């Protein structure tokens, strides 16, 4: 039987709760035997603190160990909070890119999807993105979350989506094996499919990864089509360095709005590019559900604002808890928006090695 969650966890978009009240409500939900997920209830037994008693503030989230590597083995069902009861609606089981070893797996719940799509499409509305548009998404679907999210965002905005699937793991595999030419051929295959759509359909929103966009930019014909038809390019899934972003904005697609999203499976969504980001591409998260800090990887302490450090991510919602996850990215620490939990980040780029495994970014 479903247990009603503390309303503070499902706050309406315009009533962002006090961060500490929010964190404490989340700890009660995820660590009470009647509402917490089997995974967390079991995992809590091995913690040397009591989350319901000891985790009260943003800084307290650092008490948690980074559990994301466990998500490579945990049965996804065990991640669902029992408080949902039998009425739980799991949209899908989504996996990380597999950039660093075996993929991590999460259960994605319908109520969270609804909250995230509501929040993210408001961001699009504020930025004047076209409504009722035909979107073209050259992005991963399959085990990955992004394709599903984009289809729902397009629908929420009155539009619809054409999706050309991109298998990022295959590309990474090719690159790891030194088969760069094969990866290139695959990417061309994806672009060739997108070309039919760009030529014949009224595509107004293009969703794409930076490496694919870079490849697209080699084709004058495609660049021309995008400049003629597309009003917004939503990019995410890999890093875009500041110089490339500048060139895309000023030279390649001067009349198209570029809208960066910094996503991760482990936060179950993406942070969005701050309006008016010029030289620095700043990303603001969906706070307080998602919060960032930027730390010195040696000490774990936050770096000063404006300095580079490694990104730590937290996801806290009724549907899931993934705290204190040291990500594979480095970024500049940026002052948050008013009332936001944690920091914002800018100019995200990959850490060159991670857990002793060389990071191969590929196209996602």
């Amino acid at each position, binding site marked *: 039987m479903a247990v009603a969650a503390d309303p503070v966890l499902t706050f309406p978009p315009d009533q962002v709760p006090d961060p500490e009240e929010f964190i404490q409500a989340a700890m009660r939900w995820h660590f009470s035997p009647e509402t917490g997920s089997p995974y967390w209830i079991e995992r809590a037994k091995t913690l040397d603190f009591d989350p319901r008693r000891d985790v009260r503030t943003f800084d307290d989230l650092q008490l948690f160990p980074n559990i994301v590597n466990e998500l490579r083995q945990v049965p996804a069902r065990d991640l669902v909070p029992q408080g949902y009861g039998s009425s739980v609606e799991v949209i899908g089981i989504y996996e990380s890119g597999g950039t660093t070893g075996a993929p991590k797996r999460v259960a994605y719940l319908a109520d969270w999807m609804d909250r995230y799509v509501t929040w993210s499409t408001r961001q699009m509305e504020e930025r004047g993105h076209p409504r009722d548009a035909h979107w073209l998404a050259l992005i991963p679907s399959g085990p990955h979350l992004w394709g599903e999210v984009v289809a729902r965002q397009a629908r929420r905005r009155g539009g619809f989506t054409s999706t050309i699937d991109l298998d990022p793991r295959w590309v990474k595999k090719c690159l790891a094996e030194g088969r760069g030419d094969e990866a290139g051929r695959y990417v061309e295959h994806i672009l060739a499919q997108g070309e039919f759509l760009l030529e014949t359909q009224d595509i107004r929103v293009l969703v794409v990864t930076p490496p694919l966009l870079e490849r697209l930019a080699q084709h*004058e014909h495609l660049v021309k089509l995008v400049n003629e038809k597309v009003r917004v390019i939503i990019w995410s899934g890999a890093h875009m360095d500041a110089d490339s972003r500048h060139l895309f904005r000023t030279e390649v697609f001067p009349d198209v709005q570029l809208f960066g999203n910094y996503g991760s499976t482990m936060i179950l969504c993406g942070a969005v590019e701050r309006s008016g980001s010029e*030289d620095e591409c700043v990303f603001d998260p969906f706070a307080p559900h998602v919060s960032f800090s930027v730390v010195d990887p040696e000490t774990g302490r936050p770096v000063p604002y404006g300095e580079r450090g490694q990104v730590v991510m937290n996801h806290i919602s009724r549907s899931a808890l993934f705290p204190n996850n040291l990500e594979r990215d480095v970024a500049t620490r940026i002052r948050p928006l008013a009332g936001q939990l944690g920091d914002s980040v800018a100019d995200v780029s990959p850490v060159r090695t991670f857990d002793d495994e060389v990071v191969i970014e590929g196209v996602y």
Partner: protein
Amino acid sequence: MDEPIQLDALGARGAFRARNRLTVSDVTGRPVAELSQVPRLFVQRGLSALRTATPAGSDELSAVIARAGHTFATDTVGGLSAQEYQYLVSRVSGVPVTVVRSATRRIERAAAEAYRSVRCARPAAAVDRWQDPVTRGGGAVWTRRGDVFAVHAAGNHPGVHSLWLEALAMGYRVAVRPSGREPFTPHRLVTALREAGIGDDRLILLPTDHHVADDIVRGADLSLVYGGDAVVHKYRADPNVLTQGPGRTKILLADGDWASSLDTVVASISDEGGVACVNATAVFVAGDPAPVAAAIAERLAALPSLPPEDDKAVLPVRPAAEARRTEKYLLDHADGGVLRLGGDGIVDELGDGSAVLRPAVVQLDRPDAPQLATELPFPCVWVAPWSPDDGVGPLRNTLVLTVVSQDERLIGRLVDEPSISNVHVGDHPTHRMAPGIPHDGYLAEFLMRSKAVIR
């Protein structure tokens, strides 16, 4: 100079100052410049602009290149006078300033004669233009093998930049990737050529990190890549990449009387600071190598330790830590040899964080000792015995071989040997080069081919 000098990328749309920049430091570790590091997107756009650009006419081109070479060598370019430029190159690369000056003159001369040099390689039966009367009834026209030529330049010696001017002279559109170690020379030369009117869409400078560097080679039709054995190996199977690896330059003193050749030997080892691929790495002596090694050591020991910008400097200077690594490498590889010079170390610290790399002379006891292939970036020579019975074998894989001998049969065999690129007979130092004389074959042998035209 507190503000670092900005070395921008030079793209088809003009200069580009990247947010991502590499600090270029002098031999003491003090930052002096920032080199923009362009992303893949910039490389792609640059190469595609080169591909779209039309080649310039050869008459006009030849004058532009010559004019640019003169400007490069004498005028202010990019805010730096020739003297300031030479000072910076010596401080950053550690190459003695007199060597930088002579390289400047060599580049000027190469620019003036680029077109003539290239023509030296043209097959006797081929003509430059299809309209030539020779093609009536059938003839050969000398044509480019591609449109876009890329250079991954080296930073050991500024003189490497005299070569690619020939590609420009043949109408290639050229992308130069400078070395992060000494980017001043290519930046200045490309700037001078663009100011002289070569066309921003015909010559670009693409400073990049190594992640993007391969994209330049992949995106060009033909490439010239400088590097060590690993680079040579990497591109061995690629017919569109010409590699310039270690020179393994040698001297063979095949006659008993070597004393009169000592000047040639010493100059071959130590001129140019000993940093060039045309500096001698090994000396083979018919008979006892000991007196030769001793005589070379005595001469090289007298060279002074000075900072690179000193007019009297002749030896290369590196950051002290790097110099220590080179020293360790030498001593680790000198096993089985007799160190006639350098046995107590080759590092002479100047007290400002930099160190002179002093010469080393190692005597070996056989002509097939593996050390003979060890090429180090300072005057370092391996001296070994050789007899006619050893034949050509030990002399293989050589960029320049100076042979002092009267034996015409021997000289003939050396000239015939495919793995020896250049043979200097008699007292001609290994580093002697001139426009019109091939360096490692004519570059044009790689760039051009003869095409039948019948009309």
